[in-house]
């Protein structure tokens, strides 16, 4: 594998974990007694664990391709923090989640571009590019579509009914009904 390609793939591990941390903070925010949105909280805690799984999938891929023989400690920095710890409402959090996912997708696209034509080698990494396109981009686009759909539904429910809309949406989210 080309060095620049490996470096980018390694940095993706931290990108995924950082996203996980922000989702964790979202889960914590919506679990508060004064916020009380158990559906949102559950959704974001699950998203956090999903992002962590993505990071592990990338690590597994690197291991499969013979990497990580001497430098695993550099994969993650010591203290990884969420972007923020409070959100004004459900729509704001979902919108930020969508931005987060869009950002992750952009990172993956950059890796694909580089690994197809690395600056430092002639090696076109067909397999990695195929894996990232097939597995990761599919999941990213599905996730982004899901969030966009949720933002639309919640937005519509809140235009006329405000807090009641968010209350109802939250209960639907809790039972996986939206």
């Amino acid at each position, binding site marked *: 594998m080309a060095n620049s390609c490996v470096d980018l793939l390694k940095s993706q591990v931290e990108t995924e*974990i950082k996203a996980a*941390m922000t989702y*964790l*903070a979202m*889960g*914590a*925010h919506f*679990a*508060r*007694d*004064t916020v009380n949105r158990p559906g949102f909280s559950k959704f974001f*805690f699950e998203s*956090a*664990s999903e992002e*962590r799984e993505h*990071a*592990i999938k990338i*690590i*597994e891929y690197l*291991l499969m391709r*013979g*990497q*990580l*023989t*001497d*430098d*695993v*400690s550099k*994969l*993650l920095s*010591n*203290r*990884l*923090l*969420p972007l923020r*710890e409070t959100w004004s409402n459900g729509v704001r959090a979902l919108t930020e989640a969508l931005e987060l996912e869009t950002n992750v997708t952009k990172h993956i696209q950059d890796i694909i571009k580089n690994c197809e034509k690395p600056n430092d080698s002639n090696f076109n990494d067909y397999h990695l590019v195929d894996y990232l396109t097939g597995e990761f981009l599919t999941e990213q686009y599905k996730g982004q579509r899901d969030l966009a759909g949720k933002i639309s539904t919640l937005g519509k429910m809140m235009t006329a009914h405000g807090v009641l809309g968010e209350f109802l949406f939250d209960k639907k989210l809790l039972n996986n009904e939206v």
Partner: protein
Amino acid sequence: MLFFGILSILLAVAFAKDTCYTDVGAACNSLPKLDRELMSNCNAKYGYTKKHHLVDLQSYANANIGISFEFLLMSSYFGNYEDQREGFKKLYRKFSDEMWEDAINTIKYITKRGGTMNFNESPSFVKPTNVLELNELNSLAKALDRQKQLANEALRIHSTFTQINKEDDAALAHYIEEKFLEPQADRVRDLAGYTNDLKNLLTDDDPSVSIFLFDEYLKKSL
């Protein structure tokens, strides 16, 4: 009878100052103020959490997150083609998953008792390490130390509110006992056993076969 009636009403008024019920009553009888001011007593804080923030649990959750990532990287190292120890990989991955779940559950418990999570509350009882590329025996020693640090801190947190602050919050005590103290005792004992087994196996001239067999045992027993 009448006297007791009047007395109980007076008592109810006197003791009701900082309750949610009086907040709601005041809110409905006055001009709108800020939501937060209106119902500041309508929260889930009682017992220990009525007077204290759960700062220790916040930093404990953060410690679990950090240690979960450490175990994840330790596990990954044993998965590379040169080290190739699937048992060790599986053991540390299991710890990583468990610490991650513990962190999430701690956050949920903090919010259950009316608190908020602070991700900036860094744990002072655990120092982050930069070397995770360890051999088999060293990694077991490191894992054992980490689990003991977590167990000791859980004991300390437990004693903070049972002994030092004299708050008899059985709910909080039970949570820590059930979710941390019990599983941690098992983890510490398992790791101590593994460490001693492996150390004794290494006395052979060529320990390669011993380590191979021990790794295979770990993989099958988990």
